[in-house]
């Protein structure tokens, strides 16, 4: 017994070292594969307090540019409302027997601010200042004024952590606007303004400068949300699929105000999908 104790004391440094290395490796491996606990993410109580306080201060510095872009988008939206109202008044005659118009609005938006952001890791996340108490649940899509930016991952009471589009483990179902060709968008970890659209059929038609939008095949994003534009084709060894280089529309270095998309049909669609999985 004494020998054992002596042994343990003599080599205690090795045991302590191995213990900490094992914990670190466990966290590293676990975090790269699955969602991990709220307490180990920046959306926990301490993190949200720190980031909220500092973002309140730093937000003052770019109020001018935010104001300007809001006014611009306000003007554009006002214009659109006028146009749509005009169109609506023309179509109202047909509305009585139209099956497409329903009272229920499927997608709803929750506005929030980014309080902590990163772009330099291979798997990036950012934190927002709305959480479970505002109705945000993991799996919801997140967009900013220019396009898609991520998917909600972990939610705290008043904060949530979002998997950024700049995350190599996250893929998005996208398509070339006004065409049926669907592909999978992923980021490759170098330039925060470039992503790649993979698994595009060889015969797909596209032009440089074409807009890439969400496909709407999931409950995360509605169809047709802007993502970026085609920059060109990338050479690959694979002859069956094309890979397109995409310039992202959102500027991830200066994420400010974002909107979380709430799909009213999500539960219904997911439950139908699960029934299919059982069979």
């Amino acid at each position, binding site marked *: 017994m004494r020998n054992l104790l002596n042994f343990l004391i003599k080599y205690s440094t090795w045991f302590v070292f191995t213990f900490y290395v094992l914990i670190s490796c*466990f*966290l590293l*491996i*676990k975090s790269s594969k699955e969602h*991990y606990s709220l307490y*180990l*993410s920046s959306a926990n109580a301490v993190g949200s307090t720190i980031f909220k306080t500092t973002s309140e201060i730093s937000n003052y510095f770019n109020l001018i540019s935010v104001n300007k872009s809001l006014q611009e988008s306000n003007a554009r939206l006002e214009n659109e409302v006028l146009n749509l109202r005009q169109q609506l008044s023309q179509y109202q005659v047909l509305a009585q027997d139209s099956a497409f118009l329903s009272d229920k609005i499927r997608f709803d938006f929750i506005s929030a601010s980014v309080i902590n952001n990163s772009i330099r890791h291979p798997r990036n996340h950012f934190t927002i200042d709305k959480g479970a108490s505002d109705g945000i649940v993991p799996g919801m899509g997140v967009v900013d004024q220019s396009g898609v930016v991520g998917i909600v991952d972990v939610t705290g009471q008043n904060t949530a952590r979002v998997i950024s589009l700049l995350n190599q483990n996250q893929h998005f179902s996208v398509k070339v606007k006004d065409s049926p060709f669907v592909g999978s968008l992923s980021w490759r970890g170098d330039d925060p303004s470039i992503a790649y659209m993979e698994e595009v059929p060889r015969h797909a038609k596209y032009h440089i400068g074409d807009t890439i939008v969400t496909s709407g095949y999931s409950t995360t994003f509605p169809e047709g949300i802007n993502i970026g534009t085609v920059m060109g084709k990338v050479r690959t060894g694979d002859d069956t699929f094309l890979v397109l280089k995409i310039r992202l529309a959102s500027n991830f270095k200066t994420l400010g105000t974002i909107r979380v998309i709430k799909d009213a049909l999500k539960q219904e669609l997911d439950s139908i999908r699960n029934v299919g999985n059982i069979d």
Partner: protein
Amino acid sequence: MNKDVISYICLFVILVLVQVLLMNHIVLFNSAVCFIFIYFLIKLPINISVNWVLTLGFILGLSVDILSDTPGLNALSCTILAVLKRPAFFAYVQHDDQMRNISPTMGTMGFFSYCKYIFTMSAIYCMILYFVEFISYIDIADIFIKAGASTLFTFLVILAIDSLVYRN
């Protein structure tokens, strides 16, 4: 003794906050990041037991990890750095009984030995960190560029802080 403990706790908190709120967002030339918080490990006195250095290093890394959403990454690098702290220190300083009760500074080590010591610590840290994080994503050459640039940036910032603090 008590005063020292409190000042080390303050240093810990300040460094973690500066790293998470400021340094994580400054990326020079798309590759250089300053890991200012390893200054805490660099400054820990040489005579305290390795188990304590390891524990403090692990907690330091984990705190930064949790606040920047990279669980395990900094904790692993800090643990390895903590175990290499003594060898790095004694690589540039003679074993000497008078040296036992000090924390490494410019005054106690001499300017050049101190510079070499900080540079070694920064280089070890950046190498481990970038290898662990990027090994399955980018080329080895790119990892060396990123790690080298970050080492230089970290080294310069730590040197600048020390020159300000220990002016005489």
